[in-house]
């Protein structure tokens, strides 16, 4: 399995991420593989995985905003029922030119993920059906809300009539002080 994927991965210039490394002190699952691939090679690689590699199920399809590196990392999680194996394909795209190839031709339901990604991150997928239609946010008019440069607190205060007199506490301290003063030492 692993060898098979790795062999083809070379063709697509995909590199596995830290298979034998321990992440956060924990060993990674045996049946999970992270692959990082260039933007141009991503869809061919996924296509290969689906058609020849046996990864027929698109489990998850999302994005992460790495505003510090000025990139969006797009994550495809694929699963193979025959091999009981997951592969995560990671693609980094330019945050300024947030555009990615659509994969709705491989999985029709990918169009829905792409609709969501467009709505939440502003990533476009040219050719994807219903991409510009409203999805979860009905009539949203601001910038994409999941981008990290969008200040939700400011937006909320501006929009939703905050009730005056709200106080925020640190839950741990507050609990110690207010509710269980006697037991505070044991924590």
């Amino acid at each position, binding site marked *: 399995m692993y060898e098979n994927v790795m062999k083809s991965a070379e063709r697509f210039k995909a590199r596995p991420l830290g298979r034998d490394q321990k992440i956060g002190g924990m060993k990674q699952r045996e049946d999970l593989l992270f692959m990082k691939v260039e933007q141009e090679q991503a869809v061919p690689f996924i296509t290969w995985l689906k058609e020849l590699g046996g990864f027929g199920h698109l489990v998850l399809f999302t994005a992460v905003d790495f505003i510090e590196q000025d990139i969006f990392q797009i994550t495809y999680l694929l699963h193979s029922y025959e091999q009981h194996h997951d592969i995560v394909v990671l693609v980094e795209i330019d945050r300024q030119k947030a555009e990615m190839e659509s994969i709705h031709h491989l999985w029709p339901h990918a169009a829905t993920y792409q609709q969501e990604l467009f709505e939440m991150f502003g990533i476009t997928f040219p050719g994807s059906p219903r991409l510009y239609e409203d999805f*979860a946010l*009905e*009539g949203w008019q601001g910038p994409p809300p999941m981008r990290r440069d969008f200040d*939700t607190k400011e937006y909320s*205060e501006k929009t*939703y009539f*905050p*009730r005056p007199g709200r106080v925020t506490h640190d839950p741990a301290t507050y609990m110690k002080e207010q509710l269980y003063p006697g037991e505070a030492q044991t924590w």
Partner: protein
Amino acid sequence: MDNDSNNKEQLDEIRKQLTLANNDVREGEQAYFCDARPVVVEPYRGILERFANWARSESLWILGFGTGCGAIELRPLMTSRYDMYRFGIQPRPTPRQAGVFVIGGYASVKTMKRIVRSYEQMQGPKFVVGLGSCTINGGMYWDSYNTINRLDHYIPVDVYIAGCMPRPEALLAGFNALKAKIRAGECDGMNKYAQNFDWYKANQKQIIKHWEMPDYNW
């Protein structure tokens, strides 16, 4: 002639005040919706109203619409442990027949649209119970980009039950408080809504951009 046309203009003016514009429905859909304005309905007088209020308080039919996570706390009320039926409270599956609307916790903008619609479809007098902190001041979602902070800016609320989440006991206490309020004749959210209709509508429309419904959902 002049007099007639004046009269006609006046009549048109009055009609405009009495009817809703329904400008935000889709094109060509005006005919689907009733365009009457909600009106203030005077209560009965004297003992009849008090009797009616007693009957209303003893027969609270909840709209079975779980608007937020707090709705999970409504279910135990039906079980043998809490047994809300003994207080004359029971769920109804349709707003047309329900008298109490329980807002079950946080209300996102999307849910808010449905809340407004369902609330307007209930027949008066109707009561609203705000459940959990989220309905009071946004709770843990106070800084979210899509969750409201104050329910009473959008629909009139009769009773708030604080907590995150309030337990079923708290709910029962809240319902009893509501009953007392009803019996005292203090729950007139329906007329309040009709009186301040434009204010409520403006607040609602400020957040609900994708309106696509008439201004008042009969």
